[in-house]
């Protein structure tokens, strides 16, 4: 029975990873860059809710909306100031290092404002827990909300990309920026929109992550950020279903690894699985194979 509980926890954690991974995968697909600061946007979302709800006493929903709006604006601003000027740079490493700089910046900003102490985050989820199998399995409200949010976001995003003009523009820009520009697509606008969506998702992920694991520090976002990126690569970077599969699989491996093998080695196991997958399938489970033309 405990196995099923672990499995459910794994799916729940995996759903959070999947939501973060979506942001990563969309940004990577369109801007071809590792946005190292993405994890820290999650942290900013968490702190915004903490500030609004726990410190100022606003209702949860106000806090969540505030976090989504703030993170969206933050994502657009970061892209505009720090990444856009380097889009044509001679080396793709330049923008990677800048992203690291942005990550340091966000962490230290939070450190200055809120201090280094761990904050106890009050869960914003009010859904009651469900008991199954005569009380042997308990599914917490956070888990239910997380899994439902993940499903809703996946469906919403898939519809958005396939059915709307803006979504199609995203596909076009990620395929070929130059050609998209010639077809009259506003490339800069499309990239901004991608960062906006990715960052809004990060805010939601921050809310879910902090509700399930209620401790908040300026570094809260960095490890989940890295793992979500691993999930994105695992599933095949640039692929939305890939992010979902990668996130869920990673969450399950991590929770089961912690429960049955060693809590210290859980992260190592996650990374090991990634390596094995990439060695067998170098572009991830659902990734496209790209071959250089000779």
């Amino acid at each position, binding site marked *: 029975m405990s196995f099923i509980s672990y499995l459910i926890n794994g799916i729940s954690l995996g759903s959070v990873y999947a939501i973060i991974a979506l942001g990563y995968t969309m940004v990577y697909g369109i801007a071809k860059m*590792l946005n190292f600061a993405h994890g820290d946007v999650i942290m900013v979302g968490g702190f915004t809710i903490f500030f609004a709800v726990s410190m100022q006493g606003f209702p949860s929903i106000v806090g969540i909306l505030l976090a989504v709006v703030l993170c969206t604006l933050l994502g657009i601003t970061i892209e505009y100031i720090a990444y856009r000027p380097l889009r044509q*740079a001679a080396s793709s490493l*330049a923008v*990677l290092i800048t992203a690291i700089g*942005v990550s340091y*910046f966000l962490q230290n900003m939070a450190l200055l404002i809120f201090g280094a102490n761990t904050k106890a985050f009050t869960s914003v989820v009010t859904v009651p827990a469900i008991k199954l199998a005569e009380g042997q399995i308990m599914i917490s409200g956070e888990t239910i909300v997380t899994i439902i949010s993940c499903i809703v976001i996946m469906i919403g995003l898939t519809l958005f990309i396939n059915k709307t003009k803006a979504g199609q523009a995203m596909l076009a820009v990620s395929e070929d920026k130059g050609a998209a520009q010639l077809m009259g697509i506003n490339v800069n606008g499309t990239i901004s929109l991608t960062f906006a969506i990715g960052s809004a998702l990060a805010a939601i992920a921050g809310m879910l992550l902090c509700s399930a694991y209620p401790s908040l520090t300026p570094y809260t976002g960095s490890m989940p950020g890295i793992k979500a990126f691993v999930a994105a690569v695992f599933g095949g970077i640039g692929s939305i279903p890939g992010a979902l599969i990668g996130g869920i699989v990673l969450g399950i491996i991590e929770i089961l690894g912690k429960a049955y093998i060693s809590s*210290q*080695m859980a992260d190592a196991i996650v990374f090991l699985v990634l390596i094995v997958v*990439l060695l067998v399938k170098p572009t991830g489970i659902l990734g496209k194979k790209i071959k*250089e033309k000779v």
Partner: protein
Amino acid sequence: MKRLKLSKNAKDNLITYGIVILAYVIMQIMINTGHISSLLQGLLVPLCVYVILAVSLNLTVGILGELSLGHAGFMCVGAFAGAFFSRYMQNVIEVSLLRFLIAIIIGAVSAGIVGFLIGMPVLRLRGDYLAIVTLAFGEIIKSIINVLYIGKDSSGLHFSMKDSMSLGLAEDGDVIINGAQGITGTPKDATFTIGIVLIILTLIIVLNLIHSRDGRAIMSIRDNLIAAESIGINITKYKLMAFSVSAALAGMAGVLYSHNLSSLMATPKNFGYNMSIMILVFVVLGGIGNIRGSIISAVILTLLPELLRGLSNYRMLIYSIVLIVMMLFNWSPKLINLRKKYSLRRLFKKTGEVR
């Protein structure tokens, strides 16, 4: 048109060695005359460590042209292998210099072997995929060290992955590697002078490798893999060579690092991906493929937070802003053009004062 003279290489290398030796002489004079703060004195060995790390990572990133985010992992292997040896042999080899020398060799070789074993399967991945896999390996190495227990007693060495109790040591037993508590009591054999010698050694290896037949093969792979194959260059061999040498040198830096501390633990801060990223920042800011640039940027970026210490909480914030601004300034095509347009040299050129 840009010219690249052969004799210029030799001159360039001499300048690099000269800078290191000059810096050493100046520091020695300052130490002897007492014109140096204890804070800076404490930073001298770490500075050597970071310089070696930056130069060695530049071999992978700048010369081989592959992105690695696991450099701290190799440093970790070297640090623990070297410290383990020194602790084990502390009472056997009494001459500290000799013991340290062997520790350095052991650390470098262990890290080189780990680099070779990791490089073999992963070097066929490219770009960001290789980056994430090297990051993953770095984290795995750190995790393994954290659950590793090794002790010795009269009957020999004991290993465990569980805890120090399961080592089953005899009365006279001594736990050398104690899981997450790491290694304590490593002899403090590292000195600034040894650090400088190791920097020079690193430079000799890296610079001479670059300007040799093997270096040409490595750089040809970086510039055009398909063409390199077409002229019969063994891609796997040379990728592995660059990667393993780079790992071995990082291991050497690790030995220096571990013999500067009385207690060594593998934490996310010193051997995690954040450390790998910091070294990468040195390399990119100093100029990809530019060895001298790596040295200078490693020194400046290590000293910068210390110089900003007076600003207390603001220092890392300022550091991050400096980093972003410098990247934009150095790499943004628009800013580069702007700089060219208004550069001093050009203004002078117009008036014909400077040729």
